[in-house]
């Protein structure tokens, strides 16, 4: 088997550095300040996260005093766990980080995921959510305009689940069916659970493939979530991004800590999300303080590959956006 000569390996690292620099410079221009998430923390501090990713996927390290530490499994959680004890209610922060997260995988071993991300803390209004989504779109657009962003609002599915009187384990199963867009599974679930016609219509409409269906909100929460999404789409339309954005109310993320706006970005030919984010205020409560919080992270390795492919295709080098959005 032949391997790349060393200069090609160095070239990838050079490109990775350039990619990182482009994104970091964009974030600095938008008024974000650098933050360094701690690499190690007591394993207990990540317990709220293990509901979502399972304890087995956290890389554990035993310290000299026999304490079990976790090697940063998720940058957002590390930042919130660090900030929450000192949080003051009148503070507004715009932070960015560029740091690896680590996961344990039974097939691969330890996975290092190089991430760049932003966290906007202390602000809970439409402008903050819309501005964060726009920043995510601007960054994706810098690397190629053929991307797609899925957006959703988790309050819609959560509002719907409030209407269904079933044990939480059954609701979890239902979430799985929605996540897989399994129409047959959903039909069977509706039949077995003898759900009302309004609930059935509402559930089936969630699977609308491109978010182009008619929705049937059943309560205030669901109504609000649709209004928020409409306003967001209108806002993004003024920046010419509407044709890149698809509504998907069935979107449920791996880290089920988002509450409200959620979004994911993809490029054609790369079979992993390049960007994911959303609002997660209730998750911060698990660290002792409810902090308004919204953010996103980018997979740096994927962004580097996209950048390399661009240069190989002879595309113009990426520059900074001309004007700051904020």
């Amino acid at each position, binding site marked *: 088997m032949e391997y790349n000569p060393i200069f090609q390996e160095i070239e990838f690292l050079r490109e990775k550095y350039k990619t990182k620099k482009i994104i970091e410079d964009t974030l600095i221009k938008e008024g974000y300040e650098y933050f360094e998430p701690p690499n190690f923390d007591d394993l207990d501090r990540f317990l709220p996260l293990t509901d979502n990713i399972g304890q087995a996927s956290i890389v554990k390290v035993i310290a000299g005093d026999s304490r079990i530490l976790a090697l940063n499994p998720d940058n957002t959680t590390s930042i919130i766990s660090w900030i929450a004890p000192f949080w003051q209610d009148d503070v507004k922060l715009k932070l960015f980080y560029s740091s690896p997260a680590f996961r344990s995988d039974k097939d691969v071993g330890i996975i290092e995921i190089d991430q760049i991300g932003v966290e906007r803390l202390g602000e809970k209004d439409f402008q903050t959510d819309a501005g964060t989504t726009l920043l995510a779109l601007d960054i994706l657009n810098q690397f190629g305009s053929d991307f797609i962003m899925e957006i959703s609002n988790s309050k819609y599915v959560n509002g719907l689940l409030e209407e269904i009187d079933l044990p939480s384990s059954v609701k979890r199963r239902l979430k799985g069916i929605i996540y*897989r867009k*399994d129409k*047959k599974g959903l039909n069977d679930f509706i039949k077995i659970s003898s759900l009302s016609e309004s609930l059935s219509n509402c559930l089936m409409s969630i699977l609308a493939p491109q978010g182009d269906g008619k929705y049937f909100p059943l309560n205030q929460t669901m109504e609000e979530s649709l209004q928020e999404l409409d306003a967001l789409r209108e806002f993004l339309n003024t920046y010419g991004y509407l044709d890149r954005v*698809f509504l998907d109310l069935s979107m449920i993320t791996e880290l089920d800590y988002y509450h409200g706006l959620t979004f994911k970005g*993809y490029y054609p*030919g790369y*079979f992993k999300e390049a960007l994911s984010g959303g609002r997660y205020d209730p998750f911060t409560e698990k660290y002792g303080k409810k902090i308004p919080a919204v953010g996103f992270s980018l997979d740096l390795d994927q962004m580097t590959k996209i950048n390399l492919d661009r240069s190989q295709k002879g595309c113009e080098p990426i520059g900074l956006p001309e004007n700051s959005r904020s």
Partner: protein
Amino acid sequence: MNLLDYLKIAVAKGRTERGAAEIFKKAGFKGYVGSESRSLTCTCEEEKITYIYVKPSDVTTYVQNGAADLGIVGKDMLLEHSSSLYEILDLGFGKCHLAVAGLKDRYPRSKEETLRVATSYPNITKSYFGEKKRKIKVVELGGSVELAPLLGLSDVIVDLVETGRTLKANGLKVIEEICEISAKLVANRISYRFKYESINQLVKRLEEVCS
């Protein structure tokens, strides 16, 4: 030929593939050859579809990683591999049950005793008995699992049951049904977005013949 214009479909070889061939033919798809040609892939330029014939247990791997946009595979494989693929269409063939079966009255009934379960579906088995808080030992076998209780290798089996004739022929009977199984058309979550138009057209054509 721009590969992004083509749909790649991973088809599970064997029974599923024969069922798929019938449905694709009924729906008027041209160029569906099937794996009997010994070639592992087959492209129909007119339909802009490439079929890839793989082992049933590999379909989810191909689709999950984007090597194929779509897959045709039994629900049993999706459950076993905890797939997060979109299950966009139930193809209506390959209907059967996943069930626990054993020799009549010859398996331990106390929850305190460890139940030995022979199966080709270790993950589904662990999850099913885990929910029931039943202690089990999984005996993983590649096939002919019906033999295991007869030879004392296991107390029960977890396997697909279609007509029940194989079970009956070996003196076994269904003890509990776990879930219904049928063939599914699955999609890679990202392909589904980028190739939505062609995937949607394919689904519409198939829907007309598999209802």
